[in-house]
């Protein structure tokens, strides 16, 4: 369990960094307001400035409300969270898998995996869902709407 105070601090730092980066990047473009209007760097610079300012305000707010902010917890480390991280990893793997074995096949692999992680142990249900959904996508998106979902790199 992480306290919101710590998280706010992280956000503050990131805000300053990102705001600063935006300002530096925009400074590379012309910024003066001429007869042709402001240069392309003007607006992003303004945004970067406001972001940095907002980050500072956040820091001040956090310090002022130190008590309640420390009590507020951000749930990041429980068992439930870990399951989410596993699912995230599965999804990222899925992206890679799409390239390897094609979308439809990868989909039929992904669905049972996620269902398993959600405590489903009914094999028939997993098979049925996987095949059913993939078939539905194939019929509606593949055939009807002609969306050609990626196929395996090996088949190209």
């Amino acid at each position: 369990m992480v306290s919101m105070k710590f998280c706010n601090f992280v956000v503050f730092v990131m805000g300053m960094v990102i705001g600063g980066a935006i300002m530096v990047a925009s400074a590379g473009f012309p910024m003066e307001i001429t007869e042709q209007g402001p240069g392309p760097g003007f607006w992003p610079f303004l945004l970067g400035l406001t972001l940095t300012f907002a980050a500072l305000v956040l820091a001040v707010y956090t310090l002022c409300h130190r008590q309640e902010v420390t009590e507020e917890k951000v749930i990041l480390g429980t068992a439930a969270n870990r399951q989410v991280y596993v699912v995230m990893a599965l999804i990222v793997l899925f992206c890679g898998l799409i390239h390897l074995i094609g979308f439809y096949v990868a989909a039929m692999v992904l669905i049972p995996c996620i269902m398993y992680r959600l405590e489903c142990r009914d094999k028939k249900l997993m098979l049925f869902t996987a095949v059913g959904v993939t078939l539905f996508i194939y019929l509606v998106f593949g055939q009807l709407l002609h969306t050609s979902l990626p196929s395996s790199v090996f088949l190209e």
Partner: protein
Amino acid sequence: MKKLLTLLMLTAMLLGVVGCGGSAEKKAAYPADGDITVIIPKAPGGGTDTSARGLISFLQKELQGSKFVPVNKPDGGGITGMVELSKAKPDGHTLGMVTVELAMFPHQGKATVTNKDYVSVCAPIAAPAALIVTKEAPYNNLDEFVKYAKDNAGKVSMGNSGTGAIWHIAALNFEKEFGVKFKHVPYPKGSADIAAALAGKHIEATLADPSVFKSQIDAGTLKILAVMADTRSEFYPNVPTFKELGHPMAIRAWAALVAPKGTPKEKMDVLRKAAEKVCNSKDFKDYFKKQGIDPTAIIGDACDKMMADDDAMYAKFLKK
């Protein structure tokens, strides 16, 4: 659990292979021997997209048994789609639309593909830049407009669809040709916004594709003074071309159906012959005319030449 997963994967792979093998059964002649993907590097519903889909449906009717599948790829301002097309297998089953931006982007540092990466089938639309002004404007023809612009250097507001985009380039060309200076006001969301701005009298003129302004011009709220084309527009037969008035400028926003370079000549010939028939047919012309667009029938080599000419023109103009 492991056994079931393995079983699933094997079944899936089998299905995949069978599916692929199955489609190779049809051994008909090109183009009926498989789907032809047409990459449209714009979002669905826009001008290029509807014209492309129209052209494809006519071609499909003409080439019996063929199936054209339009695929929208609006990413990267359309450049991603054009690049992908240039890298596609040149077997006649991947075609795509390219627009006049292809001739401009390489010289603006925005893209690396040029017209040399493609062979063209046809260009169904090539909208010329037209000088359109408000009804109350004190000028009624090109010369009066130029004189007014010279008297009010830097004050006449000229709307365009974005700095660096085609209509802005057209306006810059105009400035160079006639020795005038405008105030360029970009309307990035497109010509419809320019039409609204003209109707509301927030700008004074624009050089753009006249089809968007047709209803206003017909109703009399806007005036069209001249057209940058080789021949007069069928919709506005009383409007002179820049060429007639002594200034041979031709800036067109074209969209062309092309194939990647290296596509075999026989297949290109099949497509070009069909395109020739389609573009000269009455139904095709009616389809576009009813939308206020002047259709063109620039086929094959003539289309290649147009793309090359425009590329050379923009190279000269943009590499200042």
